[in-house]
């Protein structure tokens, strides 16, 4: 990340990411940001929890450089205050290893939420105070209401509204709600030169 002259609360990268100076990004070399992503103060991303057991390279072929991405985040994501992103871990062939955590585009994660999912699709809204447990898979266009606990390994199909402890599908998104997930406008309200928040 190239740094501009140090001033303001945010580090704004060339690809348009706005990362709060008070966010804690551990193992930055293993964290991929797609661009135009906002990371608010006190967010923690555990890029240090990188996969230890590598997939076997095809026999005979030259070993490809190991993929060390621990957390991959797409474009126009928004991580509100005190969000924790933590790659999930499990025993794989007798050894404990972390697996990458992948997040798509236009994903909003609310304040205080902990995410240990295997993957989160595009256009996903996760409310505040949620826990997305290990290896959960959330598909595109899903809304997780505040305070939900999504159990480990749960699969949430597209167009679901999820709530509860444990989380379960409680409703279906209305067809017309799909572009409400767009986070372009929200992106503009944060940063060193923010626009006023939308009314």
């Amino acid at each position, binding site marked *: 990340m190239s740094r501009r002259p140090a001033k303001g*609360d945010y580090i704004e990268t060339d690809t348009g990411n706005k990362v*709060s100076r*008070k966010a804690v990004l551990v193992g930055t070399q293993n964290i991929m940001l797609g661009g135009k992503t906002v990371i*608010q*103060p006190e967010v923690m991303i555990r890029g240090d929890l990188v996969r230890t057991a590598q997939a076997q390279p095809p026999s005979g072929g030259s070993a490809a450089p190991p993929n060390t991405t621990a957390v991959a985040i797409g474009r126009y994501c*928004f991580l*509100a*205050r005190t969000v924790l992103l933590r790659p999930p871990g499990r025993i794989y062939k007798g050894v404990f290893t972390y697996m990458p955590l992948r997040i798509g585009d236009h994903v909003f994660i609310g*304040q205080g939420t902990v995410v240990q999912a295997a993957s989160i699709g595009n256009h996903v809204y996760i409310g505040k105070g949620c826990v997305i*447990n290990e290896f959960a898979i959330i*598909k*595109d*266009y899903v809304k997780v209401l505040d305070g939900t*606990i999504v*159990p*480990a*390994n*749960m*699969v*949430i*199909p*597209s*167009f*679901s509204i999820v709530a509860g402890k*444990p989380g*379960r*599908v409680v409703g279906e998104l*209305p*067809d*017309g*709600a*799909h572009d*409400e997930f767009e986070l372009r406008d*929200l992106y503009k*309200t*944060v*940063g060193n030169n*923010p626009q*006023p*928040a939308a*009314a």
Partner: protein
Amino acid sequence: MSLSTPYTYIQCPCSDQTVLSSGNALSDPEEDERTFDPKAPRSNYSLYPLEYLLYCEDCQQIRCPRCVTEESVTYYCPNCLFEVPSSNLRSEGNRCTRSCYQCPVCIGPLQVGAIQPTTDANLLPTQYQTNPTGGPYALFCQYCNWTSTEIGIEFDRPSGIYNQLSKINNGGKPKLTLRDVKDRRKDNPDEPPVPDDQVDADLQFAHLKAFYQSRLSETNTSIRGLPLHDGLGFSSPAALTRIMSLYTGRGHQGRLQQGPADIMREALGTNDGLKIANLDESKEIKKLINGGWDATASLEQRKEQTEPIRFEDQLRPIAYLLRSKRSKRCPACRHIISKPEAKVTSTRFKIRLFAKSYIPTITIRPLNPTATPAPVTYRPMVQEEAPLKPHQPYHFVVTFKNPLFDNIKVTLASPNATPGRFSSRVTVLCPQFEVDANTDMWDDALKDDEKDRSRKADEGPEVGKIWEKGRNWVSIVLEVIPASLRIDQQPKKGNEKIDTSPLKSGEDILEIPMFVRMEWEADTQADMDGPASKDKEAREKRELAYWCVLGVGRISQE
């Protein structure tokens, strides 16, 4: 309900039966005179946020989830995301048969795993020895730690759980299947039928199904299409065939045939699927005395089970119910107005006519907000507006954004006093205005310079003038004087008795009913009428009118 204000709800015309039956998009002028009370109990069923609404281009009318007719496009399992063909649905039912289960205790997803031997040597001797293939296996809930071993169910293989489970009873004993019963009968034809307490719902259903199939095959009468009440009686095989064809959607293929109305006999014994209700509950009472409350299953747990059960040790893993993707038709003209792509993983639509692409989006904000905007590092937190003080004028900016590629003329009408017990005063300062067309997106860049042109700085809202205007939007100002919520301060209306009951839930929210009429000129559709409509100048006057509700804020209870 804790609604956050402000909000806008729109009324679907289906709540007014006269409009729907005549299929007329336009309401006549007299109808506009009627008042609409958003707090009336009936209104709950017709008010929707804009994103819930669809639009029929043929009827030129709003359609809502309540009035559209739905058709399944695809069935799929919400857990493994496999598509289930509708033929399987008929033969195997509406649950996933691919080892997808939910926890009967907490409803979380279940995982198949090997039962691990206890590694701590100080504990009890290992109950299970892992064999070379890794088994035995069980279902595990990672949310509440329930496992199928608690109900005595283990599996030899980690796959095909559905089949394995259909052969084991709780406790591990094999489940009696129709085939077992038949084999037994073949070996010992004189043996009495299975006692009722061993007949579970699956076996009973299998018996019943076999019984009716054999009845039906004995008679080949087919009189599909004949009314059921024509002296046949519901128990005649023909009537049954017809009912079955109605429910499986395979009607109309049989030929109309007048046959003798032969009455079919009903199930008589266990082997026909007859099961006598067991009214002796002494066994259950004894179990309840021993196990107490903790041994019973909760109501929520019981309603997810397919068999009627009472105790926790009778719970069985719940196979996932299938989910569907559905298309939606207009109730009046039957045209499809929303149709998703059939593929389970696709989120695209083949057809979708959203109301928000046809009618303006209405947003409300206070002209002088009391809440300070959230600091940048705390966004998107929204600061709640302070409650509205009674008898004090407030101004709200209401913005109409036009989604159409034509200019629209908007006319607003709103009662001077809101309906209901606590009647607030409302004035729309500019009830008639035009909103420009939704032209190319890049014009948006000019929006900000254009914004304030219609208004000089420091100037308050003026009657008859719009507040702000942009590319495809116009803002107007609404003046509101909230009513007092004190019961003793209600003005007397003639001889009417004043309702002095305490404040009901939601009554403190100031909701303004507003009638919106939009008029525009659209290109006549280059349609099937042939060359006559090729005239480029042909413009067609269109009009759409509907009620909406603006929830502007909460009134303070002082």
